[in-house]
């Protein structure tokens, strides 16, 4: 295989390179980038006719059990060192920003209930969410604005980002720890206070996210 190097100049226009070559290409692209790269972008950079997704499947198998792993982050892919080798990396460790208890809880509520409005976060925590908390999470690029809720006042909603998934090693918000149990226990439902006007309309929460994809 090592001799059958792919020369882009020799390619016939519509013939895709062999899969083994595509695998090498995906490997090189992902190695070169510190950020996750979307399948779409890989595909755009690879020669015509390539199938990045298929090449990725092979590559992922190849790196199983190695010192670096191929991981999926949302719709993108990245190489990451195996978590069990973290102890070797003191040198690379970046000081993680300390989050307040309020920020951590707010982040978790957004992740588990997304898309979620500020009013809903406050309802769950039983206390006002300070502007600074949301700002901090936005600034860290762990949350971003989602679609506005189609209820009176059209409040903005918050959702978590790909950066959040990357940081916590999650493939998607569906992989959040315990989310299935929480949902089946009804703890991710919006249950308005009995007798209170349901001014948020139908607060669909995570179910919305799941239907979408």
């Amino acid at each position: 295989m090592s001799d059958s190097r792919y020369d882009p100049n020799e390619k016939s226009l519509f013939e895709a390179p062999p899969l083994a070559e595509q695998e090498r290409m995906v490997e090189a692209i992902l190695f070169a980038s510190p950020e996750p790269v979307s399948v779409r972008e890989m595909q755009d950079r690879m020669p015509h006719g390539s199938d990045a997704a298929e090449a990725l499947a092979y590559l992922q198998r190849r790196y199983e059990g190695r010192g670096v792993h191929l991981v999926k982050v949302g719709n993108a892919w990245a190489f990451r060192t195996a978590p069990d080798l973290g102890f070797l990396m003191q040198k690379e460790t970046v000081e993680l920003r300390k989050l307040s208890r309020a920020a951590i809880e707010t982040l978790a509520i957004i992740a588990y209930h997304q898309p979620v409005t500020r009013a809903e976060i406050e309802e769950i925590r039983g206390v006002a969410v300070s502007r600074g908390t949301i700002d901090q999470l936005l600034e860290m690029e762990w949350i971003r604005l989602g679609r506005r809720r189609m209820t009176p006042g059209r409040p903005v909603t918050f959702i978590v980002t790909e950066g959040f998934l990357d940081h916590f090693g999650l493939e998607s918000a569906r992989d959040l720890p315990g989310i299935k149990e929480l949902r089946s226990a009804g703890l991710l439902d919006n249950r308005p206070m009995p007798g209170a006007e349901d001014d948020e309309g139908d607060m669909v929460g995570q179910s919305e996210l799941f239907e979408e994809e």
Partner: protein
Amino acid sequence: MAEETSLFESTSVSERLAAEALIVDVDGFEGPLDLLLTLSRTQKVDLRRISVLALAEQYLAFVDRAKALRIELAADYLVMAAWLAFLKSRLLLPPEPGEEGPSAEDMAAHLAFQLERLSAMREAAAQLMARDRLGRDFFGRGFEESVERVRKVRYTASLLELIQAYARIRTRDEFRPYAFDRRDVFTMEDALDRMRGMIGFAGDWTELTSYLPEGWGLEPKRRRSATAATFAASLELAKQGHIEIRQSETFAPIAIRARTTPRATHE
């Protein structure tokens, strides 16, 4: 409480205290729901089987104690206390016939749900923060290979833009904004240049108007400009001692001639 401990681990004590001081005023509770959750733990039962009545009593007792200690309670806590007092009376008394609104049981169930949900979120947050994390437990590529961005700029224009550009040029005179039109302006510099070349031949008195450049004598606008410039230039030349100027009476034609005598003998 294990999950609480791990939650607290991620914040330094001073930061935590500072953050809490901003939010609450009693014992570091983050609002009434947080206080209720903490109180509920003393019942040592599953949150689903909690006695809301007992919890309400605990809460009200707490608030009374705080008042006795002259601790200023935030409005949130007092609102919750009022609501719990109401709930308590509803739970204890039989419903009045024909009473509207939700039943006391529904309200109590909702409170239990809120506590359970908050507790679940706390636990989820702790689990989340305990995960292997990028930059701490696992790492991305350290070396960033330069991905060359080949920026190909392609210029484009539409037919309409092309046509409009042409129209703009061809019709510029029609609608251009006011600009000082130099075409009909004869400057003093122009006049000076012109007169310097001619003055040597002017031994006799000659009317100033005869110095106007060709083509500037007919159209009034141009004539005015040229006359003014030529007159100003003649004054300048007189001042420099090259010519003499005379005018027989007011509004009479002005005439000039070259000076033959040095300026020192000014008459």
